[in-house]
């Protein structure tokens, strides 16, 4: 049973520091080996999990959600009212989609998402978080100087465009709905989904381009 004692954990961390191999791949391998021995995981299932997150679960799921919101006003209303239910309806429920909030960009406002305290991310619809999202650089700066961080991503905003930063401090996760680009009126939902970039759903991309990013 977990001790819930931080002092115990500090001791264990220090102990591990001198006992674990330095290479992260070897550390993970050691963990997998002992968990297999203990009957707690099967390596075959880990292989499958990696496949599922490489092939099926990733930002293309979020892109379908956004594209549908663009073409289906009733769905968009449901998505804005209860993101978890709307995503579940599309068969996209999964880790961190239990409390999902969609926030919409407008010509006058821009949304950007962060988790300053750890690395919370809506895995079920965006897949694995990019490494930059989890770095000290992004987490420290995007709350304090969002415009400077956005500029590094190539997003230049006028001083009049309001920037709303969402710091994921509880179990709510955020999905940014970027604006639908002009000139896409005749496009199908599948074609529209291809325009939606991962970063636009985090908020570090804004003006989506026809013909890809």
């Amino acid at each position: 049973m977990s001790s819930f004692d931080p002092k115990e954990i500090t001791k264990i961390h220090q102990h591990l520091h001198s006992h674990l191999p330095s290479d992260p791949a070897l550390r993970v391998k050691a963990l997998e080996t002992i968990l297999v021995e203990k009957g707690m995981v099967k390596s075959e299932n880990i292989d499958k999990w990696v496949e599922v997150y490489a092939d099926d679960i990733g930002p293309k799921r979020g892109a379908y959600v956004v594209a549908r919101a663009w073409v289906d006003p009733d769905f968009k209303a449901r998505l804005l009212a209860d993101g978890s239910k709307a995503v579940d309806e599309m068969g996209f429920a999964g880790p961190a989609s239990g409390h999902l909030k969609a926030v919409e960009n407008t010509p006058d406002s821009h949304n950007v998402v962060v988790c300053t305290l750890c690395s919370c991310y809506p895995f079920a619809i965006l897949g694995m978080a990019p490494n930059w999202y989890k770095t000290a650089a992004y987490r420290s700066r995007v709350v304090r100087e969002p415009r400077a961080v956005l500029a590094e991503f190539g997003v230049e905003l006028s001083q009049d465009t309001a920037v709303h930063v969402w710091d994921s401090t509880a179990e709510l996760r955020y999905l940014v709905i970027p604006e639908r680009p002009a000139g896409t009126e005749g496009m199908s939902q599948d074609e529209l989904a291809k325009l939606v970039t991962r970063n636009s759903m985090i908020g570090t991309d804004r003006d989506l381009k026809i013909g890809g990013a």
Partner: protein
Amino acid sequence: MDGIHDLGGKLGYGPVDVNEPEEPFHADYEGRMWAMSRTARAPGVTIDWWRHVRELITAEDYLNRPYFDSWAQTTIASMIDAGVFNIEELESGISQTQPLGHVEIMDYDGVLKQNTGMAFKFDRLVEEPAEFVVGQSVLTNAKGHSGHTRLPEYARAKVGVITHYRGAHVFADDGAKGLENAQHLYTVSFKATELWGDTANPNDSVSLELWESYLAAS
């Protein structure tokens, strides 16, 4: 806990690497660590305790070692703490006990289904009425505490406005002690100028989810 993890607003970091290749995993071990973190849990572990164990990694390692390495260290530490295995077993790869569980081999669709079942809910019913209402101005606590908490340092002793009521959610500070207590949860919006001073853009804001005990009427 005023630890290294509480990074919001801290100066001296950056720039952001915007040229990172867009791929699910940059190394095989990342995917394997992700999969293990979804499917193997130490007895009694809560999401909040797991986060706290990660926060307790030494500052040097927290900042400098690769991200999924910190997940490995966190999971290993929480499993040693819970008695799933000891360091000797980890080093040798040989279990000194009978298997603790039995896992069936799954196919691709089985994993997809398992994944779908992981949309966990953290809202709970509570009897006490919510103390605050949407539109109300609130002041956040000035002080943190030594344990796990989700009120970051940059948002302490600040005035914000409640924009949404989220229902009562499992309280993270208690969750890290293995206790399940729910408290009313609100989204609170702070003007960037309130957080960072007059040099911030007056149009900008930062919103956080905050539990009722982090807040007072202002």
